[in-house]
């Protein structure tokens, strides 16, 4: 915000300056992230195409780059069908409520040095709290459709989001302990210096992996896309949605994936920090470049996982959250405490790494017995 303040200070009347200062970050953030959303759908389809040995979209514009525009126009002009038995008001509200929390999280993501729409002193807590509200939208969509597939998808979705929320918050606790602050800018600034990113430390690495997995589950990306499993329950909670309402669901999911990626970058990957992010004149540009480069890495990891992993079963999904991720994130807090009270860096590294390695081995051992036995066929020798 300081950058904008300096830019417009004294160049226009005070009330206009104030209005610009309030509106400009909103416009910039919405514009930038909606562009990223449109690009992401294209990148995802291209990348999935490469993984599956086909070309992906390549008809509209150069290398299919205008595909998102064509998709948007198509969905806008489609008929909006509401089932006769549906609960009209809730059916209408659900897609709106999916998009709103996704965008609200953007308010506390520091995109560049000195650029954050609202610098709340409890920024990360706000992001985690708001992103939980999406579960209600999911349920509303499934419930209001009066469709068994929708309701099944909604129930799966609620169970999944509630389960993965717990390890996610626990994984975030480690970062808050290390930074000693709940503000997103404070967390980024605590990661200064070579190897200062939290992901470069044993507890940070474990926290990063847990948080990333939970973020993917929270926005129902592919290995965890049970709420909308096409092969089992048609399309899940948005079976009865068409046209622009369906587009809003897609948009909510993608924007939520991007914003959760932004929170991950802020908390574990050093946010906007990087070589050159403190340069006097162009620092804001370089730091924004760093932020979006890291965000790109997270997004590519998401797409890659989608192209590589099959969907998990619902018992595997919930068991993974409660039996592995949650205990591991609790042990991670202990490891962080060992790090904090260690007399020097080396002891801290050793202690926390040993604690985490032992916990991981034990957890995998305990849960290993639950895999299926090899199936034997009676009539095939």
């Amino acid at each position, binding site marked *: 915000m300081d950058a904008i303040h300096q830019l417009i200070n004294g160049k226009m009347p005070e009330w206009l300056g104030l209005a610009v200062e309030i509106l400009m970050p909103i416009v910039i953030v919405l514009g930038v992230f909606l562009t990223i959303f449109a690009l992401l759908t294209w990148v995802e389809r291209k990348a999935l195409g490469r993984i599956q040995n086909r070309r992906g979209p390549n008809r509209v514009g150069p290398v299919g780059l205008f595909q998102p525009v064509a998709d948007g126009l198509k969905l806008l002009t489609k008929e909006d069908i509401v089932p006769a038995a549906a*609960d009209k008001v809730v059916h209408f509200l659900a897609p709106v409520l999916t998009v709103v929390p996704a965008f609200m999280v953007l308010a506390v993501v520091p995109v560049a040095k000195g650029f954050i729409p609202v610098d709340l*002193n*409890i920024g990360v*807590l706000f992001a985690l709290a708001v992103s*939980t509200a999406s579960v209600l939208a999911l349920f509303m969509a499934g*419930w209001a459709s*009066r469709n068994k597939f929708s309701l099944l998808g909604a129930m799966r979705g*609620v169970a999944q989001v509630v389960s993965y929320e717990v390890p996610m918050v626990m994984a975030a606790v480690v970062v808050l302990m290390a930074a000693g602050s709940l503000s997103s800018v404070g967390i980024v600034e605590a990661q200064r210096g070579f190897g200062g990113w939290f992901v470069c430390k044993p507890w940070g690495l474990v926290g990063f992996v847990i948080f990333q997995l939970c973020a993917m589950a929270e926005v129902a990306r592919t290995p965890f896309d049970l709420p909308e499993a096409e092969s089992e329950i048609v399309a899940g909670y948005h079976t009865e949605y068409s046209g622009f309402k369906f587009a809003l669901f897609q948009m909510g999911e993608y924007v939520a994936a991007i914003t959760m990626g932004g929170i991950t970058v802020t908390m574990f990957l050093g946010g906007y920090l990087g070589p050159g992010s403190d340069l006097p004149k162009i620092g804001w540009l370089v730091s924004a470049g760093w932020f979006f480069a890291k965000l790109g890495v997270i997004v590519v990891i998401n797409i890659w996982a989608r192209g590589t992993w099959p969907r998990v079963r619902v018992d595997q999904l919930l068991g993974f959250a409660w039996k592995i991720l949650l205990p591991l994130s609790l042990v991670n807090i202990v490891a962080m405490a060992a790090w904090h009270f260690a007399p020097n860096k080396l002891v801290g590294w050793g202690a926390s790494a040993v604690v985490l390695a032992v916990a991981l081995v034990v957890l995998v051992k305990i849960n290993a017995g639950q895999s299926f036995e090899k199936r034997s066929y009676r009539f095939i020798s």
Partner: protein
Amino acid sequence: MNFVFLTLSAITVLGALLAVTLRNLVHCLLALVLFFLGIAGHFFLMRADFLGAVQILIYIGAVAVLILFAIMLTRNISGTEGGRGSLGGAWWFGVAIAATLAGAMCVFVRRSELVSKLPYGATEEGVVKEIGKLLVSDWVVPLEIMAVLLTAALIGAVVIALEEEKKR
């Protein structure tokens, strides 16, 4: 400030009224969520950001979802059955209790010396730190008792779930 306060209050009161007067159970829950959101907005308005975020995290993220689960586990999931009157027969009794409670709270809040410190949350990072310090110093015994209680409840839930599995 005044305009924002009035709008928020109107939303909050509307949510509360709808929560007790609507006939469909799920609609009631959604109205309740609206009410929770209004309260969170009031906290943010008073610069108590921490309380606002916790209000959203606990009441919308946990309490509302818990009620949701309770509704989903009943047979009446569409919420259309059950023809109770919109307010129930003894609504005046409820109103009397609510009025008494609100009156008592008004009296005690006005007497409290905290009112003179409004807006309390205005100090930057201080509030969260202050709450944390108080929790592990002056209020450590209640905190620990609460933790033990919650752990016991958790273990109890696991035990109940395990017995169900054995019977099958």
